[in-house]
């Protein structure tokens, strides 16, 4: 049993790249669901908007990196939010849910289409768009940093990711303590009440959808930069649900909830992965119970089990407050 490797990997899950990508996506979902009550089951498409906004700008259109940032963080997510929000946000919450999950699958399937190869690189996706990003790296590409966890380029992605995450968390913290955040929460509680008090519920929901989408796009863009590729298969619906798991684990409607949730999720995933692999390799795990190739699936079962236990014993999530949860029953 390689305890050093297990601890290293668990720690990496706790603070590493996946934590950053999905933490940002989950913060976006928290903005949608936790604060405004919008059901977005297509956060993957906002992540894809960030990834493809940057990669298409640079690799397809030949624009420079900064235009890519603008396209991926602002233009693509706002267009998406408008496409999905304008027809649905005047209707009941379920319509947005349907449209978002459909939009995320449509985007993925369209991006994969061979006829769009020239634009999206079809199923191979796009590469070679992050050169400028890595040129700014202060780290030596051959060195290992941060207790030897990350090599140079990874360290640069993680550093930028931490800064972005901190800025986003700070912004959400400030915004949700403002009158603007108060209106969002009121819309979550009762849209008609907010409207009767002179609040344009539709417009506030639109803003929340777009802003949460921008946070998701930041996560998706960092992910594309970190993996140096933007591929349709990186934005399957599972991606949306990982972000949801992170949000539910941590606790919705709390600023730190999605961040802690994402950290815990990837710590558990990484820990179970390497721990089970080691157990199988060392012969601790009887063959009839599990083989090495099943580890990948089993760890998701364990996450499922953790969610069931959470729903039973701590439905408000790690950060949520029980008192608030109890108000639902009244």
């Amino acid at each position, binding site marked *: 049993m390689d305890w050093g490797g297990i601890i290293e990997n668990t720690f990496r899950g706790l603070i590493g790249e996946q934590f950053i990508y999905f933490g940002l996506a989950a913060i976006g979902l928290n903005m949608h669901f936790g604060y405004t009550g919008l059901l977005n089951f297509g956060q993957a498409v906002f992540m894809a908007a960030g990834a493809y906004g940057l990669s298409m700008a640079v690799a397809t259109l030949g624009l420079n990196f900064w235009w890519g940032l603008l396209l991926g963080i602002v233009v693509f997510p706002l267009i998406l939010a408008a496409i999905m929000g304008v027809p649905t946000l005047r209707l009941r919450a379920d319509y947005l849910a349907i449209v978002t999950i459909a939009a995320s699958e449509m985007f993925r399937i369209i991006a994969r289409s061979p006829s769009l190869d020239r634009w999206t690189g079809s199923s191979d996706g796009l590469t070679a768009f992050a050169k400028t990003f890595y040129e700014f790296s202060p780290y030596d590409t051959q060195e290992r940093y941060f207790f030897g966890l990350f090599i140079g380029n990874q360290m640069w992605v993680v550093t930028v990711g931490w800064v972005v995450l901190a800025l986003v968390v700070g912004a959400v913290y400030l915004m949700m303590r*403002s009158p603007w955040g*108060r209106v969002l929460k*009121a819309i979550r509680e*009762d849209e*008609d*009440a907010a409207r009767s008090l*002179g*609040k344009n519920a539709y417009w506030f929901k639109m803003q929340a959808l777009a802003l949460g989408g921008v946070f998701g796009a930041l996560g998706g863009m960092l992910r594309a930069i970190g993996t140096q590729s933007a591929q349709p298969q990186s934005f399957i619906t599972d991606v949306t649900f990982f972000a949801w798991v992170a949000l539910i684990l941590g606790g919705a409607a709390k600023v730190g909830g999605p961040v802690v949730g994402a950290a815990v999720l990837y710590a558990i995933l990484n820990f179970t992965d390497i721990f089970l692999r080691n157990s199988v390799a060392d012969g601790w795990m009887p063959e009839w119970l599990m083989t090495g190739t099943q580890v990948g699936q089993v760890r998701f079962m364990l996450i499922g089990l953790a969610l069931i236990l959470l729903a039973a014993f701590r439905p408000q999530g790690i950060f949520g407050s029980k008192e608030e949860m109890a108000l639902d029953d009244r």
Partner: protein
Amino acid sequence: MTAENTADIPVAPAFAGVPWEPGAAKPDPILVATGVRRSFGGLTAVDVDHLEVQRGQITALIGPNGAGKTTFFNLLTNFDTPDVGTRTFERRELSRVAAHRVANLGMVRTFQLTKSLSKMTVIDNMLLGATGQSGERMWRSFLPFTWRRQEAEITARAEALLERFKLSHMRDEFAGTLSGGQRKLLEMARALMVEPNMVMLDEPMAGVNPALKQSLLDHVKGLRDEGMTVLFVEHDMDMVQEISDWVVVMAEGRIIAEGPPASIGQNQAVVDAYLGAHHDAALDLGED
């Protein structure tokens, strides 16, 4: 109405000379509805020829179940749009105003099923009510120094209202922990944060225990004494008799009677609507 028993019926001064009939013109109407019709499929829920609501007075809208009161109320508050007809508030045509803007014009409503925002504190419920908050702009939300002063002002106003409605001790509790009656009080107090000149109350007495009823009645009267116009929908006839200055009766989507509260019980159309018309005559199926 026969002439001999009308003489002893008290009439609020503002309604002197107003005829006791449906669609009567008022000296100074704040809200006027004309030719308003709303149907759901084949059912015409509301078909009102004309209604004027007098400024600065308490008007009650009553009627038996299914009379279309709430539908008409939703039309008057612009939460619903009529198929045809006009509604003007302070001489402004409501069809050209978005639902949420009505509050900015000075008309605020409450709901039959109280909409206290459970997972927000009582004080946050109150603060939400203030209109024209600069901190409600997204780009200002993370610049607290641009709205902090206004926030302090409306907080002071909210605290004064909580004091008046005897909710100060619940200031920082979640609204979801309040009792039914306290929620009604909170909803009314929150509506006043809008600084309205017309308050529309949808069944303010529904689900309120008798002990709180009197205080709620006093609060409604207090609104009039401060110069606000009140229109309320209500089943509770005691409340109607006690606090309203004028009563409008609906049945089957139409206004069938208007008059001072004491006159309504003697009105034959109203008695028919509540107790069933012409129980000794043949059923009339020709109408509509």
